[in-house]
């Protein structure tokens, strides 16, 4: 029997016996492999194996959490977590009711990507790197490939015992062009729920990425200011994640009276065409799972429906404190961290407008595609495009240097005046919060148009 299974069995009775309001254990074992290139050659190739676990206890509203990667003295660790919770507790424990579950969830992949020989994975990457390097004026490239396979056993004092496995694959390629001290780069990020097919057949996209990096050397920088901006599905996905998703994570809201007022359900955040969903219950996406890290079943949650705030993401504690239904959004990056409220697969639902109709009528605007990244402070957020073009008289015109866009959640969502019919999910992202990064998520959207969006520039 694998060690974590034995450890989980040994904890079953102990969790029930202990004097805490609630007690849980997560035991985890994982394997990963990675291949990175810098420039022409391999930078690093390696395999890693890890195992460990944690105990989390709740006493009088205070939490104790202890993580470890030696599975010795588990009774001592249980006692420690309870003792910590006792020191932190000063009120009343409240957790939303969830029926205990016993279940086993397989990884759902035909083949564990980690066990595929490194030579085979490397062959694919070699080909992509060669395509980048065969592009004139490319100075260098970076490629980062990772895969992982993880098994997590969750059990708690209410009698749940859940054994879940999952696999994950990510690939990021960057082409870097340089001339006369100018350096420009374009990247491509992909991912999947363990299926290597997602990173196959990218020859065309990789070539285009490298040529675009070179083209940027001659591209002008945008003039800073307000523009009508059209976002492609990838960037619009990052936008919805940053602009709205983080604000709907209720761990930030539940104990903040003023924010609770701002985030009252029913409040109008956008036009009647705006619908925003977070759902770990979609099959096969990187943010999908059957149970979250508190053993709560995943559901599909509307955050915004017809422009109105209708829901938010919960852990058992935030749901209980806000007297709402749990949504199964408590996630932990690994056994080293306690679960916190996180997004899963977040997207804007498609409308009926075609891409051509979205562009039509824009005299001067910016078409922003692809992502570098995004950040939020709840009210204000920024997200940056990997590619940008001017829009002139309803047509995509000259390329621009990558742009950073910024907005304010209370005005920018209202300024979305067109939503396309071409929903696409981006699987290449990872989300960071509270030091837990990168957590597998996916974001998506159709093309959207935003009026009066602030763009940084010269």
């Amino acid at each position, binding site marked *: 029997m694998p*060690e974590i299974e034995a450890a989980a069995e040994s904890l079953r009775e102990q969790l029930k016996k202990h004097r805490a309001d609630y007690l849980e254990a997560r035991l985890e074992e994982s394997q990963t492999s*990675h291949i990175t290139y*810098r*420039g022409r*050659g391999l930078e*690093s*190739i*390696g*395999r*890693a*194996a*890890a*195992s*460990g676990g944690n105990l989390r206890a709740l006493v009088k509203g205070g939490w*104790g*959490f*202890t*993580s*470890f*990667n*030696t*599975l010795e003295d588990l009774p001592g660790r249980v006692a*420690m977590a309870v003792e*910590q*919770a006792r020191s*932190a507790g000063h009120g009343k424990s409240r957790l939303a009711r969830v029926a205990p579950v016993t279940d086993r969830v397989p990884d759902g992949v035909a083949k564990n990507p980690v066990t595929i020989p*490194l030579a085979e994975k490397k062959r694919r990457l070699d080909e992509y790197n060669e395509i980048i390097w065969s592009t004139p004026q490319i*100075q*260098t490239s970076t490629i980062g490939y990772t895969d992982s396979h993880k098994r997590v056993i969750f059990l708690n004092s209410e009698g749940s015992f859940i054994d879940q496995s999952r696999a994950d694959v990510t690939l990021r390629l960057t082409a*870097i062009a*340089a001339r006369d001290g100018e*350096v*420009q*780069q374009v990247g491509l990020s992909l991912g999947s729920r363990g299926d290597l097919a997602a990173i196959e057949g990218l020859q065309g996209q990789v070539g285009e990425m490298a040529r675009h990096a070179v083209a940027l050397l001659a591209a002008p920088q945008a003039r800073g*200011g*307000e523009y009508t901006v059209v976002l492609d599905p990838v960037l619009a996905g990052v936008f919805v994640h940053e602009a709205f998703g983080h604000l709907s994570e209720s761990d930030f809201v539940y*104990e*903040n009276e003023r*924010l609770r007022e*701002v985030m009252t359900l029913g409040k109008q955040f956008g036009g009647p065409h705006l619908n925003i969903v977070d759902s770990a219950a979609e099959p096969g996406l990187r943010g999908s799972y059957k149970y979250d890290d508190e053993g709560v079943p995943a559901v599909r949650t509307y955050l915004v429906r017809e422009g109105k705030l209708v829901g938010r993401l919960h852990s058992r504690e935030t749901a209980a404190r806000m007297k709402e239904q749990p949504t199964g959004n408590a996630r932990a990056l690994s056994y*080293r961290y*306690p679960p916190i409220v996180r997004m899963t697969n977040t997207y804007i639902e498609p409308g009926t407008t075609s891409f051509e109709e979205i562009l039509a009528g824009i005299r001067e605007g910016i078409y922003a595609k692809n992502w570098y990244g*995004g*950040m*939020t*402070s709840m009210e*204000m957020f*920024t*997200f*940056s495009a990997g590619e940008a073009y001017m829009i002139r008289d309803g047509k995509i015109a000259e390329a621009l*240097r*990558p*742009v*950073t866009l*910024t907005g*304010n959640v209370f005005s920018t969502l209202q300024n979305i005046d067109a939503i396309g019919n071409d929903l696409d999910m981006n699987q290449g992202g990872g989300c960071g919060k509270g030091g837990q990064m990168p957590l597998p998520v996916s974001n998506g959207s159709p093309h959207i148009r935003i009026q009066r969006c*602030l*763009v*940084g*520039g010269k």
Partner: protein
Amino acid sequence: MEEVLARARKVAEEAEVYRVSSEETQVRFEANRLKQLQTNQQTSLALRIVKGGRIGYATTTGTGDIDTLVASAVETAEFGTQAKFQLPGATDYPAVAIFDPAVEAVPISEMIHLGETMVTAVTRHTPGIICEAGASRGVIQVRIVNSRGGQAEYRKSFFSLDIEGNLIEETDMLFVGETDSSCHPLADTRKLTDAVLRQLDLAKNKAAVPTGPLPVVFTHHGVASALVMPLMSAFNGKMVLEGASPVGNKMGQAFFDKKLSLRDDPTLEFRPGSRPCDDEGVPSQRTSLVEGGIVAGFLYDLQTAALAGTKSTGNGSRSRGGLPSPSPATFTIAAGDTSFEDMVADIREGLVIEQLMGAEQGNILGGDFSGNVLLGYKVENGKIVGRVKDTMVSGNIYKVLKDIAAVGSELKWVGGFLQAPPLYCHGISVSSRG
């Protein structure tokens, strides 16, 4: 560890075993109240081998067995990079004081008290503010042994405090915060809360800035959030070797303003980034990167240095369990001679930037930065008049740092690993909703 080394030597020409163990205890406050106590214990082991002239690599934590570790390293060595370096043999290390036994002795009750004191100071000053705060202490132990007889071992203590406040008025949100860290226990919460109270006072009124080029003072935090990431990348020996660093071929040239000096110094005492040797067992040293505006050096690990035909600067770092790669340990920008007050007094219309959000999302290699002013103030006729919002600043650090109006005289640690003064720069591009 010796057993892993012995096993690896049977199948490879060279081998190195790196082990890091850590124990950390944290006290967390949420919504102004004590919320969680947390401990983390972790040990991980990394094996690097040279087999057939190529590098193989594998890591394990917890209960992984030696046979799998060695076999994984051998598998990866088939495709690994050609090893161009030699592992360091037995050598002397500088004495760098980074362990204070008093850290482990700080009782949890004292850590809770520190958190309470910070929260109380801030909530008393500004009723309605919601604070998160924390105190953390721990010890890290590192040991490295290799097949050339090299051996290094050290123990480091660390202690940190943090406080963040969030104030909401209608749909207006303000975030303020400060952190401090050391290898000694910290007890001076006033240092943090005074900085937070000052931010709250300065942000009380609102102000609007016009769109266009403006003079900007970057505070310590502002420097960290806007300018440092591109510099760290530009002085990375790997970027230099690939020709992707804009400063790579500027060695000995005056590429920056002569008021700018930049160093990496992991020998500074009792700093969480300091250590007697890097993660490959190369002794720590102070490395000048920019002296008086002149490019003076780059940061190297063993392999990159060998490829570049130079020596490792002791900057091999294994972030996130990977192979060593060049990285700064303790980045310091030297102080200048102008006080923050004098910088502000010099501005007729401009900005003070405390926090820039998202600046590191752009073309870092090229030195571009562009971000939303998360916390910043408008300056009018030499005085801070209020907080600005919905404002972006953009620029290129190589243009900005070529002509610095003034370098601040007050040095401050930001996030434990960066020491910086405020910087006063001209003509930063500002876009505002006004």
